């Protein structure tokens, strides 16, 4: 005979979708018939356990409040605040709680329980948001019953023109699970208003952008790169030019989160590519105050100002990844931010040798910014697999290709000075007798990406800030998880 003292309360959390819960049901029913008071909570199908007169806990509020991790969980709660908790079926444990040595004699000694529904992926954060203390510092914006949350985001000016994911507490909490960094950590000051930004605020904007939590470390690394003074995000945002941050991801994280470096790598269709770049842009807009027409003064803008993010194809071991060329170890996860415009397509379906393709690429690269400008911008060349194959078959690597391109882009100053060839634009007249390089030695970044078919590469012109060689440069940062 089980016993129960008056000062204690017995609680039992069950769900239908749990064999161990079903195993203990007859025993619990028998105990109740013997007068033992047990308050049963059912997480999924209260009707299934109706003979136990359960509380409907399909909202999971009680399960959350009692911090249930497993079903069944039997709790003996006493007035003095002490409680005993038995998870799963543990014969001796139940016998101890109920004071009966013979309890469940025909049952096995032990059966593990199942995971509580309140702990299922994505559920817990919703329960924290609904019944707990989410610990989010950002201002609450209440949305009325008849209001559309997405329209509210538009009305408040939080979007880039496309719909955003409404930043609810549950979504923000889930996003913050993507990093080990503390929500109140300050990452830096976001231009143009130079406002301090926390990990939490970045996470809220990552929600808006449509990121998954596992993208957040990349967003944070991209933000750190953007806020590095030499990236000159301030000028890049406010400039009248076309440019915006171009994000290149290197390392195993690109594959693990499903980024695209192949067909249409620079285009639409991949969630990680699309939303990581967008999150950075939304942070600049919402936290920094970079609003087009206000402090974003771009004459024409460019589609890259929505998002411009892709991964490098590291599947060919003969190709040295961009991150390694910039001093990081192979296999390290990094982001490289480049101040770039949209792309200029490069078409060459005739070149057969490395020398030919080099001359061909160089002739197109010379047009970056203006054919008569030199050491005025940087550039990114996105080399497609078929074009790279021309180099590879002759054993040319990144260094040799880069060196050859720079060499092909040297020109006499007389052709480039202001006024030469009847064109006012050009380099300073004092350089008349010089041999002039198109880019700084470190100013040509080559990234390998694209579908396997197509003798088409892409040139991404750099921003005019690049003329300040040491003041405005691309930045690479390690991604911290």
């Amino acid at each position, binding site marked *: 005979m089980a016993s129960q003292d008056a000062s204690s309360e017995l609680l039992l959390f069950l769900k239908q979708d749990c064999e161990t819960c079903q195993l203990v049901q007859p025993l619990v029913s028998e105990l109740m018939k013997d007068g033992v008071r047990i308050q049963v909570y059912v997480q999924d199908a209260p009707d299934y356990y109706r003979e136990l007169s359960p509380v409907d806990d399909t909202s999971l509020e009680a399960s959350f409040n009692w911090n249930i991790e497993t079903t069944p969980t039997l709790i003996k709660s006493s007035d003095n605040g002490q409680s005993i908790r038995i998870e799963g079926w543990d014969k001796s444990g139940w016998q101890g709680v109920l004071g009966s040595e013979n309890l469940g004699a025909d049952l096995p000694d032990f059966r593990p329980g199942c995971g509580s529904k309140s702990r299922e992926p994505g559920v817990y954060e919703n329960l924290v948001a609904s019944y707990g203390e989410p610990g989010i510092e950002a*201002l609450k914006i209440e949305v009325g019953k008849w209001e559309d*949350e997405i329209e509210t985001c538009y009305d408040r000016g939080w979007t880039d023109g496309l719909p955003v994911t409404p930043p609810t507490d549950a979504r923000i909490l889930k996003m913050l699970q993507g990093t080990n960094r503390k929500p109140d950590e300050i990452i830096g000051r976001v231009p143009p208003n130079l406002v301090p930004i926390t990990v939490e*605020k970045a996470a809220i904007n990552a929600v808006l952008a449509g990121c998954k939590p596992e993208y957040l470390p990349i967003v944070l690394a991209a933000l750190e790169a953007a806020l590095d003074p030499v990236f000159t995000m*301030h000028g*890049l945002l406010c400039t009248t030019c076309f440019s915006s941050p171009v994000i290149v991801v290197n390392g195993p994280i690109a594959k693990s989160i499903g980024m695209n470096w192949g067909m249409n790598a620079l285009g639409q269709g991949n969630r990680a590519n699309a939303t990581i770049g967008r999150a950075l842009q939304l942070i600049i807009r*919402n936290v920094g105050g970079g609003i087009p027409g206000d402090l974003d*003064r771009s004459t024409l803008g460019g589609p890259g100002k929505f998002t411009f993010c892709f991964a490098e194809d590291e599947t060919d071991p003969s190709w040295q990844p961009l991150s390694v060329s910039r001093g990081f170890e192979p296999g390290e996860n990094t982001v490289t931010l480049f101040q770039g415009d949209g792309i200029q397509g490069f078409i060459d379906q005739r070149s057969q040798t490395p020398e030919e393709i080099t001359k061909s690429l160089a002739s197109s690269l010379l047009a970056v910014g203006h054919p008569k400008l030199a050491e005025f911008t940087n550039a990114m060349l996105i080399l497609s697999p078929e074009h790279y194959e021309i180099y590879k078959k002759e054993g040319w690597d990144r260094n040799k290709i880069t060196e050859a391109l720079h060499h092909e882009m040297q020109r006499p100053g007389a052709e480039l000075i202001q006024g030469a060839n009847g064109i006012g634009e050009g380099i300073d007249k004092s350089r008349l007798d010089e041999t002039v390089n198109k880019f700084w030695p470190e100013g040509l970044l080559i990234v390998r990406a694209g579908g396997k078919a197509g003798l088409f590469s892409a040139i991404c012109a750099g921003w005019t800030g690049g003329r300040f060689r040491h003041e405005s440069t691309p930045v690479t940062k390690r991604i911290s998880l």
Partner: protein
Amino acid sequence: MTTSVLRDPTAEKAGSKRQRLDPPADLTNKVVALMDIGKMRGDEFIDRLEELFSERNISTKRYKKPTNTRTAPAELIQKIVQETDLVVIALSDCGSCTSCSTHDLNDLDHLGMPGVSILTEEFRAAFAGQCEKIGFDGASVFTPHPMQNKTTEELHAFADEVVDELLAKITANN
């Protein structure tokens, strides 16, 4: 009735503007910093401003930012504060120039340096917007836009046109 709660993704900043420092009543024994923001052609405009100030027996010192695309390095700001009494910042004719130079104007004001920023007309609204966002009632003077495709003589003429307004804004009794 509330059905959902969203969280604000913005800086959550709103507030009043801080008044700029009062400039001195006159420029006797004062040194005016002429701060070149580092944008192309600005030096030609400032060359003429320097002449105009000299003609009026106003002492000046020239400074130049390494790039118009960033706010001024702390060392430069400190040097200006140590060596001069007021600042004229010129010549912003782009978005990054405007935003960065407005922060510079604010930073110098915080350090006791009244100043005026000179921008091209096209960036009047951007200057006002940046002042609004950082809560600073900055002073400005505007020249015609565009200026990059003008001759040196035309840029000097721009300086001639604004010098009186500029002097009025860096002295309190005008």
